[in-house]
């Protein structure tokens, strides 16, 4: 197979390849431009954006743990208006798809945030953060209840025609119930998993390390959790899944894809090697060639068959 097809269409949006960079780990896209050829990536997912700018939590915000890290940034961001004005012009010059990630404190705020992008050229998809564990109001508050997930996604779908990807939390009793609620509400696709609630204590100071006390655990430590949840959700919904959680290389990406992910996101690995996503794209192409697979789509969920 000389030229395998890496393209994937999700919710009517065609991605050149199934490798995205995860929200919060790639800034607004321009920061890594000096060292990463963003045109090679399937999509850049923006840092979570809110109607008004947010300063985020006081330090300390991050802490390294075995094969992972905790973060409690607190959705620090420049706000949707500044993002559209200052960051979208750069993203529009790129070949890759642009996914904006949004959050709010109320269902009305989510819908209003979504509507802000209706007339913005170059926004291909919207990822809904109903899963960050690090804020008091909004996010995981909605994403941990099937009913609130349904209401939130339904309100957003009513406010925008941009395809909607609901980003789900692993910190729930049944992620499949949440996934089905999102699907019923009209979500075009799902992304999972967000970080797992965790905590570290400074034993010298006898105090929690993070100012927010708890944070979200990410990195290779959580990959088996993400793969299992992708597997379970794939069996319960018809809409596509974008898998993430601890993907460091092609092998990790393939686990998610074989479990049922139509695309994957690279998160914490960007901090270790900013070119991880570019390397996974190249590795995936080689893999398809070596295994005589004509197109990437054939790999999705093959461990389930």
């Amino acid at each position, binding site marked *: 197979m000389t030229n395998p097809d890496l393209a994937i269409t999700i919710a009517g949006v065609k991605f050149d390849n199934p490798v995205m960079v995860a929200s*919060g*780990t*790639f*800034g607004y896209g321009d*920061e*890594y431009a*000096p*060292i990463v050829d963003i045109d090679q990536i399937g999509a850049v997912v923006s*840092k979570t954006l809110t109607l008004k700018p947010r*300063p*985020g939590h*006081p*330090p*300390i*915000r*991050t*802490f*390294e743990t*075995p*094969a*992972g*890290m905790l*973060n409690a*940034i607190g959705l*620090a961001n420049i706000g949707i208006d500044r993002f559209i004005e200052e960051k979208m012009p750069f993203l529009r010059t790129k070949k890759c798809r642009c996914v904006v990630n949004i959050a709010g404190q109320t269902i009305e705020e989510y819908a209003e945030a979504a509507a802000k992008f209706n007339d913005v050229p170059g926004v291909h998809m919207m990822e809904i953060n109903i899963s960050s564990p690090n804020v008091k109001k909004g996010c995981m508050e909605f994403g941990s209840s099937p009913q609130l997930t349904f209401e939130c996604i339904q309100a957003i779908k009513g406010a925008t025609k941009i395809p909607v990807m609901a980003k789900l939390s692993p910190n729930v009793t049944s992620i499949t119930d949440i996934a089905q609620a999102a699907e019923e509400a009209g979500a075009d696709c799902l992304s999972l998993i967000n970080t797992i609630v965790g905590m570290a204590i400074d034993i010298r100071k006898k105090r929690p390390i993070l100012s927010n006390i708890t944070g979200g655990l990410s*990195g*290779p*430590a959580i990959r088996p959790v993400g793969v299992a949840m992708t597997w379970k959700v794939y069996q319960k919904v018809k809409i596509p899944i974008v898998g993430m959680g601890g993907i*460091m290389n092609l092998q990790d990406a393939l686990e998610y894809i074989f479990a049922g992910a139509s695309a994957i996101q690279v998160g*914490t690995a*960007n*901090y*270790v*090697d*900013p*070119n991880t996503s570019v390397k996974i794209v190249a590795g995936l192409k080689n893999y398809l060639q070596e295994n005589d697979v004509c197109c990437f789509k054939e790999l999705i969920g093959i461990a389930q068959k």
Partner: protein
Amino acid sequence: MIYQANSTVLANQKLGEGCHKLILECPPVAKESRPGHFIHIQVNPYCFPLLRRAFSIYDSDGKKTLEVVFKVVGQGTSLLSKKEPGDQLDLLGPLGNNFTELGSDEIGIMLAGGLGIVPVYFYAKELTKENAGLRIYFLYGAKNRSELYCLNDTDQLQAKLFYSTDDGSFGYQGYLTQLLEKLIKSENLPLEKIKIYACGPEPMLARLSDYAVANSLFCELSLEVGMPCGMGTCMGCVVKYQPDKNQEISYKRVCCEGPIFKAGEVVFD
């Protein structure tokens, strides 16, 4: 310009108990390295420890090589301390901002506390090279003599050298900030001509910051905090920022809005 580039370890010199100097060959990063910059080193190709480690640049020949000096404090630095000539390390850099220039009629005072010598030495070396004619005072302090790891290098600087140790085992007994106050008085230095460049433990920087603000001294502090990305994306390495006490505290990323801040801008807890 920032690069992600492979470097080769040329030498690993032990400067004292648990303190190492790594000399790395990495032309793209070396060419762009300026005093104040840091590099982000991938210490391990595996998953534990996971994140890169940030190191201020101690020296660079501006062509091929650069140097870092560090103390073993955890797993990342422990791995680095075992590197041998020929080993490869992935670098991101040079990152961060630089110290402000020193005018020909100004007086530069460098304050190096412990391993905080790293960025300060790089700048002192540049300011004192080739008979630049600048008036430079270099104050270097540590807990005790054995922790003044870089004495052999500082002795070569064409600057007025002053040393301090907490226990009095070398030079002035006391804090660097006390030594600074003493120096300004004894040399009768005009405050408005002084530019202070400092790096060191947080308590030292906090004391220095208060002293500089109280005396309206120009003073720059290079900060060290843990930073996951080093490129401004993760928002994880922030410090409290409040240059105007009438305004609310905001946050600045040390990796890309620092690591150098002016005294009085950063709130030390």
